């Protein structure tokens, strides 16, 4: 695999046009709304690691949430290194047409949420999207994480990559 097969970090934003930007955000929203699961990429002990997770985003897409048991490898890595990526894609919908496959790689930082209002907010968010995870999220050994989505890299048509950096409040 050549390096340019990967989403390229630092690709400059396209010349801004409000319309194109809105279309990009709309595409990202649609993809995220349509795909309930993502691949969470973690790192630590000089080793990258990937795990499938159920996730939910906040309304403005600048942050999101996922949960994991505290006994897992990904939990240990997340505690060690908060920098994460989340890959959301629809490849399962187009098994024979790669050009229609769409993905978004979200990069950012994840923080473990202690009991309190913020945890309750994100827990409700995750359960609203994944009602069957209610008891999982409530379990004493489940850690809930909130991640800041610093950058979205949206890929269509095999290699067409566009970047969106969500505006941050304050």
């Amino acid at each position: 695999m050549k390096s340019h097969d990967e989403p390229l970090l630092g690709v400059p934003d396209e010349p801004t046009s409000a319309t194109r930007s809105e279309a990009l955000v709309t595409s990202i929203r649609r993809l995220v709304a349509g795909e309930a699961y993502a691949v969470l990429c973690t790192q630590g002990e000089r080793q990258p690691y990937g795990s499938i997770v159920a996730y939910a985003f906040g309304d403005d897409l600048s942050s999101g949430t996922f949960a994991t048991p505290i006994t897992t490898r990904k939990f240990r890595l997340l505690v060690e290194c908060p920098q994460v990526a989340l890959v959301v894609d629809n490849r399962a919908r187009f098994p024979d047409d790669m050009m229609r496959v769409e993905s978004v790689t979200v990069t950012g930082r994840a923080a473990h949420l202690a009991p309190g209002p913020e945890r309750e907010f994100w827990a409700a968010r995750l359960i609203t999207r994944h009602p069957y995870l209610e008891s999982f999220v409530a379990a004493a050994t489940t850690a809930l994480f909130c991640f800041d989505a610093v950058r979205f890299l949206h890929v269509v048509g095999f290699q067409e990559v566009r970047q969106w950096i969500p505006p941050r409040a304050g």
Partner: protein
Amino acid sequence: MDTAARWVIPLADATDEEERFVGSKAARLGALLRAGLRVPSGVCVTTAAYDRFVDDAGLRGKIHMELGRKPFEAMRWEEIWDEALRLRSAFLAAPLPAEVATAIRTALAGLADDEPLAVRSSAVGEDNAGRSFAGLHESVVGVRGVSAVLDAVRVVWASLWSDAALLYRHELGLDPMSSRMAVVVQVVVGADRAGVAFGRDPRTPAADHAVVEAVPGPCSDLVDGTVDPDRWILARATGRVLEWRPGERQETTGARMPLLTRRELDAVLAALHGIESLVGWAPDLEWGLQSDQLTLLQARPITAAADASDPRAQYLRLRPGLRRLRRLAARVAGELIPALDAEGHRLAAEDLDRLDDEGLAHAIEARAATVLRWKDIYRDEFIPFAHGVRQLGRLYNDAVRPVDPYEFVGLLRGEHMIASRRNAAVAALAADVRRQPALHPILRRIAGGLVSAHASGWSASRDEIQHVDGGREFVCSFESVIRDFMDVTYGSERLAAHPGWLLSTVLELASVPTPADHAQFDDCAGFAAAIPAPSAHDLECRLLDAVGPVRHDEAREILALGRLSWRLRDDDTLLVGRLESQLLRALAIAAARMCITGRLRADASVTPAAVPVLAAALRSADVIADLPTPDRPAHPASHRAAEEGSRQLTGQPAGPGLASGLARNIRGPADLALFRAGEILVCDAIQPAMPHLVPLAAAVVERRGGMLIHGAIIARELGIPCVNGVADAVDTVANGEFLIVDGYLGIVTVGTPDFDLERRGSF
């Protein structure tokens, strides 16, 4: 036709053509109504409403999660019941979509003014000539008020996922995921007599006979088998009574008059004929009579359901109603358990060594017959009574609506089961050893020698122990525990015949200061607030508050039955185990005699299967006792291949807590003595021979699943994490492997998570 917004329709509009929309029961009642037959008025909450409810509440995902946990065939009844309980709780907790609730409310306004209503299932494809779900789905009768009806509709919907319904669908090869449920809500019509009737006798369909059964009071008393009915067999064409059998009912005194007059029988028969000419098949009819007014409650095709081989009958038998539970409680607690206990003591007291060979042969055969008889009783009466605790769970969950569907288990805390008493007695022995340091080294040495020896080894050792300070008292207590609690079998071995196994456990328990301190409990504080478990008294108050004063007596009765059922569920297993142990004792004596005379190899396998061979050999000196040598179980997978293996196993979170430690597989009786404090007990199931090991364990992992099985009960009583229902637990986990047991989530992590292999780059 746009069905999407038709959440509720009048029952008279329900047709066969729309059976997928209204279910079979509603479609047939609609046909009867349209034909002008007397059927209680009602409405049908359609499958569209069900779909909308399930989708809006996210219940489909929950159903997939529950049913996808493991292959259906790999699940025991207990696990399926647990799934059904969790789904039922989820259904009850989920709000009805506003427009569906509004539609039901509006429909009820035109139906009844605070009259009692019956809310019944009408599943799609529920009843046809090939199958009948009668009794498997729920009905709620006597419901008053809109709010109660909305609750009852969810209860009925949830019953699509009841254990009995799931098992029956599996039996029929139906995909439960494609099942859908409509609900019929009807006015309850009073009945001084009620019953069922068959257009043709289901036992002899070729004969030109109809059958009518009648009971005093409502039809539910007949359907759930609590009242024995009067029964008529009639000539279909003429209505002539061919046979009448009065029901056996306690309330009757003096000569029994038939419950139905000739005129009333004719009315039922006319209804059968009327329905048959309307629908084209001989019906299975439920009816009620108030004064002389006949009301038809439902009609379905006659199926093989009356056949005793129908699995539905077995599922229904395992779900006793309150009246049957009362009868079972009286019989099990009042007669059977005391008789079983007495039988065990009687057999234990019998001096078999003094019997001649003929007497011993007779004793062996009598004991084998006793074991068989009690196993039948166990299957037919103890197991159904064990379901009493489920009745309690249902009452509690329906009334209290707890977040945790197993909160009711707290009501059972502190019940003094034999297993608890045994654990206390073993703990007391360990405390004795701690108090007498001089005992410890000598017991350790003796235990080492005894582990592979039999009781004879113990006889030689006891004198030595009695010479040490505290030894006499210890021997006395130890032998008392062996006699009272260890007269059980495990893998065709009597625990009582291997005192070294118990002694090893006692010494291990004595080596840890308090039962819980040995376990390496992991800290999950900070991840969720620790909520102290409410006491049994608090939960009882919660239940009584929720049901309200009118139902206090009922709730207290169900609570008492549930507690009794819970306690006896464990005790009966141990007491039947004693009978098996006593059979093995007699067989061992016979085997010893045969060995002395050279008619049996010393390594022969002496199991209950040896009864006929040994009895014959005892009776005739010419007979050689030809018994196989024991199978040496191959214990594969002590260590799994490094390149392939499980890293994380899932099961059911059966005891909350998080702990880690080294795995110890208990595959057979010889493993009992190897168990060390702080290890994770991994086994197929906690057998009656094992509960005294559990206090030593950091956690329990079992293949057998269920929240209410022995292992889960004991682990929760001791506050030890337990994950059960882990497929092939013993074969998957190797002895000595590091495990993390998450009893909150039902996850067992195998091995230490690291990237050593990746770092070494040895690929």
